[in-house]
């Protein structure tokens, strides 16, 4: 039997329009909840559209109508057959104090690899500069760090007035956005089976190691610590966390020792990736503010002991946050 397309469309179209209206309403307001009668009606319309689709595909039909029905059924299918946990109403505090640290600890191995990649880069950069001071020209990409550390320190410490007056907020915004972009790239490069992530971590470590050794060799270790540590104790772990996210992605792509399919593995970690990278963004917002408002001021404006002490407190709080916070989290977060 061949479907009389004209009659078929005329008879069924009101039902399709009803289903489309329900779907449009759901899409306009995702938070809306249906009553039992509305849900029954929605299910009925879905089944009717599915039956219509089966009819029109079994028998000869007009492809445009088939495609329209397929689109309609697929939208309804997505609403009705979604069996994964519906995300509960987002609670920023719960996310920050429980979900983020629990997620970090769940992938602690990836964090270890990420940290190791950066440390290897750090040692490489430090050794390169200690063996060949000229290597700084090649390894350090920032022009203002290519000069003599001693000259810079004496210049910075001779400043009496606030030379960053009127540009501090812009500076903070630039640090936040630039570092967040780098972190997102570090995470996203996990899609290259982790190779890109490891290269970014290694190269960041090389620059850090080269600059650090340059200042240490010039006898400016105290300045270096006071300059870098107030923001660095948050910013550097943030980059390592971004590397952790990238390696989590790489781990899911490679799937060593896992019997789950690639789709399942990626589905399992997508929430964790977003949690980690959002955590990194929060850390970098803080680091950007500190870098602009604290790190760029030196003695005699800000005593080095204050800056170093501030960094120590930050580091202790960060370590405590990542290792202890969320211990009493729900099983859902620890899953």
């Amino acid at each position: 039997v061949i479907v009389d397309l004209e009659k078929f469309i005329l008879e069924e179209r009101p039902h399709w329009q009803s289903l489309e209206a329900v779907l449009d309403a759901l899409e306009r307001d995702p938070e809306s909840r249906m009553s039992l009668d509305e849900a029954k009606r929605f299910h009925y319309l879905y089944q009717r559209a599915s039956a219509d689709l089966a009819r029109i595909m079994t028998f000869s039909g007009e492809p445009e109508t088939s495609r329209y029905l397929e689109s309609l059924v697929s939208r309804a299918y997505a609403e009705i057959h979604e069996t994964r946990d519906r995300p509960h109403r987002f609670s920023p505090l719960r996310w920050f104090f429980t979900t983020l640290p629990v997620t970090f600890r769940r992938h602690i191995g990836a964090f270890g690899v990420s940290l190791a990649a950066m440390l290897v880069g750090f040692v490489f950069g430090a050794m390169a500069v200690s063996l060949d001071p000229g290597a700084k020209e090649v390894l350090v990409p920032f022009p203002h760090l290519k000069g003599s550390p001693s000259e810079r320190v004496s210049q910075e410490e001779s400043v009496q007035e606030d030379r960053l007056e009127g540009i501090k907020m812009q500076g903070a915004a630039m640090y936040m956005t630039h570092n967040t972009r780098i972190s997102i790239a570090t995470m996203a490069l996990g899609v290259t089976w982790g190779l890109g992530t490891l290269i970014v971590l290694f190269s960041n470590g090389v620059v850090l190691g080269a600059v650090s050794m340059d200042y240490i060799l010039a006898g400016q270790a105290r300045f270096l610590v006071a300059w870098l540590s107030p923001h660095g104790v948050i910013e550097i772990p943030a980059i390592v966390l971004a590397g952790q996210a990238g390696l989590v992605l790489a781990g899911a792509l490679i799937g060593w020792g896992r019997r789950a399919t690639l789709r399942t593995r990626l589905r399992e970690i997508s929430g964790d990736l977003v949690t980690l990278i959002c955590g990194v963004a929060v850390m970098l917002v803080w680091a950007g503010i500190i870098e602009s408002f604290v790190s760029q001021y030196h003695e005699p404006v800000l005593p080095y002991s204050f800056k170093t002490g501030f960094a120590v407190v930050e580091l202790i709080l960060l370590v405590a946050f990542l290792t202890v916070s969320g211990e009493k989290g729900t099983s859902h977060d620890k899953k």
Partner: protein
Amino acid sequence: MTRNKAGSGASEGRGGRARSLVIITPEGIAFSMLLAGPVARGSAWAIDLACIAAATVFLNTLIRALGPIHRDFFLAASVLAYFIITLGYGMATEWYWRGQTLGKRLLRLRVLDVQGLRLRFSQIAVRNLLRIVDGLPGFYLAGGLACLWSRHAQRLGDLAANTVVVRSPGIREPDLERLLPGKFNSLRDYPHLAARLRQRTTPQEADIALQALLRREDLEPQARIELFAEISSHFHSLVEFPEEAVFGVSSEQYVSNVVDIVFRNSSVAAARQKL
């Protein structure tokens, strides 16, 4: 067409690439979604870029107007706003409109979970965050190549997020009354052969005949004759009607008669013919 155990699969196009994503529901209904290619997706993204640019210009103008109040604060706000708009536009619109940005809405594209399920925010976030890699080394080269090579036309962000971009066509009813204006159909005098013709005609063949009739006015005269000769010869080979049923019937009229039989309710059409 291939299907996997997860309830989804793909119908193959040229070069092993899928043209559509096939999803089989627990009710046993299989439906397919047309996958959007790189050109359609690129066009949608161009529209989105224009929206991002417009939003940025508007915000910058606003901030510049407020600048004299606290220059440092408003310039910082400008930097942050640009960053948030470029990064958040795709995420916010795809989350709010369930897989559609403004560009995708205009071009009737939609991001879909690869198994047809509802999109989760983490999927939207991951596919948008990975744009940074898809854009490497420039002009979306990595993403474009991935889109061309991947089975479901996925860029790297889609692969990581388990998403695909599909086309959602709107409904368009064929105007059979205009197409088949109630002329005598000699084939209807042989109902058993007409039934066999309906049985043997696939939806694709029926569609070819219907589309040829819909577009016949656009064809050059010679091309029109050749096309309908070819189509009618194919339908002749499916079912052979007696000589008196096809005598003096042109190829185009024969195809028109076939479409009438395939698409119209036989009893209604027969009654109309008797009138």
